[in-house]
């Protein structure tokens, strides 16, 4: 038995494959590779003339978006394929976030990757394989997106890729029915939110429910809580400094933000409605965290817009339905800080067909095509060219209206921009320990200590 340090790697790969395999089996396979199919046959090709004739050309697109969300993506490529003759090869993979780095480092990157985090985008650019976005894409992004969005895909002054989808995280889920029955009103300031929580608690019911369990990513919902509170307490400028580590993680503002989150999440009077005590937040999966609202054992649950999909079939998600969400209010009504996320299209090739497809994905045309092939909703973009009236789903409408509100100050999920050692390790882990009893001070100190030097 000579050298064996590689041995754990085998175990790891196998275990990973097994673990994923098990969870994926239910989701219909981790990796699906097929061209776009379905969708209406496109008749009017005038808008696609500029892309030229791309007959026989192929573009590979690699993403972490898998069944069932991949279908609308593939359908939205269909008009481009029909009109230009190019073939788009869509590959969805649940292990995208680690695999795309491996592929880029090994010199085998896809033509285009849909990257869900600015931090990962920076890492991919650092491999030297990514290509700068063509001028047409940059022009579209200037036209259709806010400046902040362009900034997230800019590394060392060079702009790399157009934003794709977007999500709004500053939402609180509630039951409109319960609010009506009990005479609660949707709060418009943080103080009102606190007052409402106290009112519900005084009625003998725990107002909030939460769950942060997410396998090895356990803890991430707490990072969203803290980011939302940071934006509200200290404003977007301080928030940016905190994310970029221009102020230490354990300085006064972040500490106050986590403490504020703690007045909700670690308050035994407030949590964990229908799920147990404060500690039960750590063992409840984030998918289950808001379900007690339906049982009436919980009234408020802070989670992103995608959470709509977690309610059982038949639940009416609407302003007059079983469940809906309101904007997590700011300190006052003058500014509306909004926390969110999104994806970016990063290209690793500058072949003409890749450039053409990349440009198509940065247009309002694509955003609207994407919405019209997603009849059930569940997808929005921060693209200002997006026709909000086309959205069918009430929660999409709410999210899009928050994004396009002129008072809204959008900020990207901070942990997604921090280095991996923090954003996908220490921040999650210490947040989890914070829920199970660790003090705020010890938590921010430990995260600061883990920041890569």
């Amino acid at each position, binding site marked *: 038995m000579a*050298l*064996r340090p590689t041995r754990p790697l085998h175990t790891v790969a196998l275990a990973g494959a097994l673990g994923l395999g098990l969870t994926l089996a239910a989701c219909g396979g981790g990796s699906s590779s097929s061209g776009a199919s379905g969708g209406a046959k496109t008749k009017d090709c005038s808008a696609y003339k500029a892309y030229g004739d791309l007959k026989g050309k192929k573009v590979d697109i690699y993403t972490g978006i898998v069944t069932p969300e991949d279908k609308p993506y593939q359908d939205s490529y269909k008009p481009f394929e029909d009109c230009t003759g190019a073939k788009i090869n869509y590959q969805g993979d649940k292990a995208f976030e680690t695999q795309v780095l491996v592929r880029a480092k090994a010199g085998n990157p896809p033509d285009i990757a849909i990257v869900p985090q600015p931090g990962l985008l920076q890492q991919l650019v650092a491999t030297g394989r990514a290509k700068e976005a063509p001028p047409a894409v940059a022009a579209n992004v200037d036209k259709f997106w806010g400046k902040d969005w362009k900034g997230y895909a800019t590394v060392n002054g060079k702009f790399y890729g157009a934003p794709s989808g977007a999500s709004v995280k500053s939402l609180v889920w509630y039951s409109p029915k319960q609010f009506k029955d009990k005479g609660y009103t949707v709060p418009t300031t943080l103080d009102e939110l606190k007052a409402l929580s106290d009112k519900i608690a005084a009625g003998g019911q725990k107002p909030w429910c939460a769950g942060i369990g997410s396998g*090895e*990513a356990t803890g991430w919902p707490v990072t969203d809580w803290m980011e939302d509170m940071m934006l509200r307490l200290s404003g977007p400028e301080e928030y940016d400094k905190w994310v970029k580590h221009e102020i230490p993680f354990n300085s006064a503002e972040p500490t106050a933000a986590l403490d504020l989150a703690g007045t909700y999440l670690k308050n035994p009077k407030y949590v964990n409605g229908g799920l147990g005590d404060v500690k039960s937040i750590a063992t409840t999966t984030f998918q289950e965290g808001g379900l007690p609202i339906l049982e009436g054992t919980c009234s408020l649950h802070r989670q992103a817009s995608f959470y709509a999909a977690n309610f059982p079939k038949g639940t009416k998600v609407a302003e007059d339905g079983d469940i809906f969400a309101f904007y997590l209010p700011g300190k006052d009504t003058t500014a509306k800080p909004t926390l969110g996320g999104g994806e970016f299209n990063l290209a690793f090739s500058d072949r003409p067909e890749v450039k053409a497809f990349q440009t198509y994905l940065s247009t309002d045309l694509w955003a609207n095509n994407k919405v019209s092939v997603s009849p059930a909703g569940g997808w929005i973009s921060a693209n200002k060219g997006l026709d909000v009236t086309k959205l069918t789903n009430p929660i999409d409408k709410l999210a899009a209206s928050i994004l396009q509100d002129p008072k809204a100050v959008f900020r990207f999920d901070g942990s997604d921009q921090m280095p991996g*050692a923090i954003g996908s*390790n220490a921040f999650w882990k210490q947040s989890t320990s914070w829920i199970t009893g660790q003090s705020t001070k010890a938590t921010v100190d430990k995260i600061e200590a883990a920041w890569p030097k």
Partner: protein
Amino acid sequence: MSNSEKFLTMLSAILLFVAVVGFILFLATRFSGRRADRVVAWLFLAPTVVLLAIGLIYPGIKTIWQSFFNASGGSFIGVDNYKTIFTTSDQVTVLRNTLLWVLFTPFVATAVGLIYAILIDKARVEAFAKALIFLPMAISFVGASIIWKFVYAFRPDQGGVKQIGLVNQVLVWLGGSPQQWLVNSPWNTLFLIVVMIWIQAGFAMTVLSAAIKAIPEDIIEAARLDGVSPLGMFRFVTVPSIRPALIVVLTTIGIGTLKVFDVVRTMTGGQFDTSVVANEFYSQSFRANNQGLGAALAVLLFVLVTPIVAYNVKQLRASEAR
């Protein structure tokens, strides 16, 4: 890659394999005379040596080399990664947990397996009883972990909320209140260890049962004639006779335990202070993107496993030599 492409790749790999083996066999036939045996032996060894060098020795050396570099692998930082492992509180917890695993799993699993093997030896339902405890061995670690996650599942003690976890349900029936088994450190590590013991006891039982059956009948008879008590039989006859098998079982489980990863990753993801070296190595390398620290943890694991492997091989040879 489409399916036809995959089959094409597979086919060309098989052809390549046949070609290489054919070529070696062809070369082997060209040698004759006094020194032919040596040459032929080397020829047959060559593919294995080459593959081992590429697949094991090169990555091994590279991992050791990498462990002296920083997170991105760009600058040399000496033994700082190793210092981190032994000084930061999170990493020390990882070491403590690994120690708990190695202390408990092999000994408890072997003890359970041994006692079980003796109890059911020559019983009427022996085959069935053996199958029963051996079954967990057939389940993958991840599958076993998911099963046990349900066993430990927690639901609050509130009206209208039903327990779905076996342990908590039993506790509630006995009048207790449900507990969060996987949250409170260090007890949660022990609850994870139970899963590993559940899997490994079957392995220990099978090997030890075979060893017990191989004890020569005349030794047992002689002991009986000397009027030995059942306990004395166990202490002075059974255990000494199966000592080599016992050590092989202990060390084999020990090696597997040091490398434990699946159970921790599936059940807690290393949260709540349950991480162990192999899991931490994965988190650091692939999640935190700290290649240097990840490599250092891999090297540490290698250093810990090596002596046990060496001892295991030695004992295996000794028991075969008998």
